[in-house]
């Protein structure tokens, strides 16, 4: 099982979620973060313009089985890319165990619905 963490532009969240859905990723968790990177944003405050490298972003994370990883990454890259500085990053790491609290199931089978 792999954990995927994607730091994306907030306004593109809807597109990414749909792309993931098409790539069979239905369970995700996300929250808002602040990112410091290459991109800069200009704001105005009382007659002054100032630039900030602190950008509001969204972090999406999900755990999935290995065979879905590449498809998922492709989906994110496709939907979250604008080509301009600040498109964000995806990180992949290993998950050693997983539990579905409702059923107590452990391991990969906790990640999908058997019917």
């Amino acid at each position, binding site marked *: 099982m792999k954990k995927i963490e994607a730091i994306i532009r907030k306004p593109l969240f809807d597109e990414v979620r749909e792309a993931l859905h098409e790539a069979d990723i239905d369970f995700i968790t996300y929250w808002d973060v602040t990112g410091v990177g290459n991109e800069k944003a200009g704001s105005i405050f009382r*007659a002054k313009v100032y630039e*900030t490298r602190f950008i509001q972003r969204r972090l999406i994370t999900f755990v999935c089985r290995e065979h879905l990883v590449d498809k998922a990454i492709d989906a994110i890259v496709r939907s979250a890319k604008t080509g301009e500085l600040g498109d964000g990053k995806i990180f992949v790491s290993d998950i050693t165990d997983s539990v579905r609290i409702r059923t107590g199931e452990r391991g990969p089978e906790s990640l999908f619905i058997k019917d």
Partner: protein
Amino acid sequence: MKRVFSLIALVVFGSVSIFAQAQPAASEPIISFGNTAWMIVATAMVLLMTIPGLAFFYGGLVRQKNILNILMQCFAIMAAVTLQWVVFGYSLVFSGDGSFIGNFDWAMLKGIRITDVSPFFISQEHDRIPHILYVMYQGMFAVITPALIAGAFAERIKFSGFLLFSILWATFVYDPVAHWIWNPAGWLAKMGAIDFAGGTVVHINAGIASLVAALYIGKRHNYVNMTLPPHNIPFVALGAGLLWFGWFGFNAGSGLAADGLAANAFLTTHVSAATAAFVWMGLDWILNKKPTTVGISTGAVAGLAGITQAAGFVSVGSAIIIGAISSVVCFWMVGVAKVKWNYDDTLDAFGVHGVAGFIGAIATGIFATALVQPNYSGLIEGNTALVGVQTLMAVVVAVYAGLVSWLLFWITDKLVGVRASKKEESVGLDFAMHKEIAYTNVD
């Protein structure tokens, strides 16, 4: 204008009973229900300007970790200065016939009965309001003035220092200055200086004190390379809206009656605010590419502060000019001058209130017209004297407020300290000073 007339024989009216109102002798002033109705509401509206108006206007502009400190300051001043006012402040300003300061005859409102008519009036000599209502109305001005200063040292002041300074300042700066200008016996009033609703007494006065305090206390840590967006802009707009609303009590109430003069003050106030808001929006748009919410709110406040002094002396055309000038100059002040001169007046208490106050003082000398109050004409009607005495008033108040505020701040610093420690500043004043956190999401 608050150019008010104290009646020689106040004692005479002391005996006017509220039941006597039905059959007043022609010459005897009465308590007018209509004027009293308006002034009760106007008084409440000026309270609303401080809490929650100014409190939210300022509170939304600071960082999340400092908003409660701002709110707390507004409440604490409301409490402390109200007591000071009733105990001796009102008496210092309005009793007696000294040129420089009043006496203690009205301390604890001694001898002021509920049936007394106010000895002070503007346009309605006959139809007046209760004296105690006048006390309350003026008291709200005494409260909001030191509250304005809180904008200058926001995010780094020690609360005890703040409170001590505010009470001292209300006593040694506000009270004398108000006496000079608003007590008919005051030396500036006698020279003919006019200030309808407090452009000098409130805005220049607080503005200069703000500048002094900001310079004395020094910058916030990391000020230079910090970009500090307001933490809650809707709160800023809420505060600005309530200030705009309350300012009608402030300005249109300053004629102490519900008449044509009040309506004129309402008109000029509203038009100046609208013009200044519009101009600031335009400047933001042209110079910075985008019109902003904080900008238009700040512009409105600049226009309100600018017209305050002139509201009961000028006509609508002049109000447009005053609003526009206030907006342009304040825009330049906070956007260019403050950056160049490199001082940290956190919320621009000087850059907006002080500067607009000056504009209003001079503008009154220029634009006052006999069409509004027959006895007051400015430069455009050929009276060169007024603009001179207005300038004198503005300069004198600025110098006095500057020196004494510095002294009081210094004394406060020696006694209890004014500057929060570096650690307190970085933790945030809310938690450091009040052990509270503004927003929590414990469920």
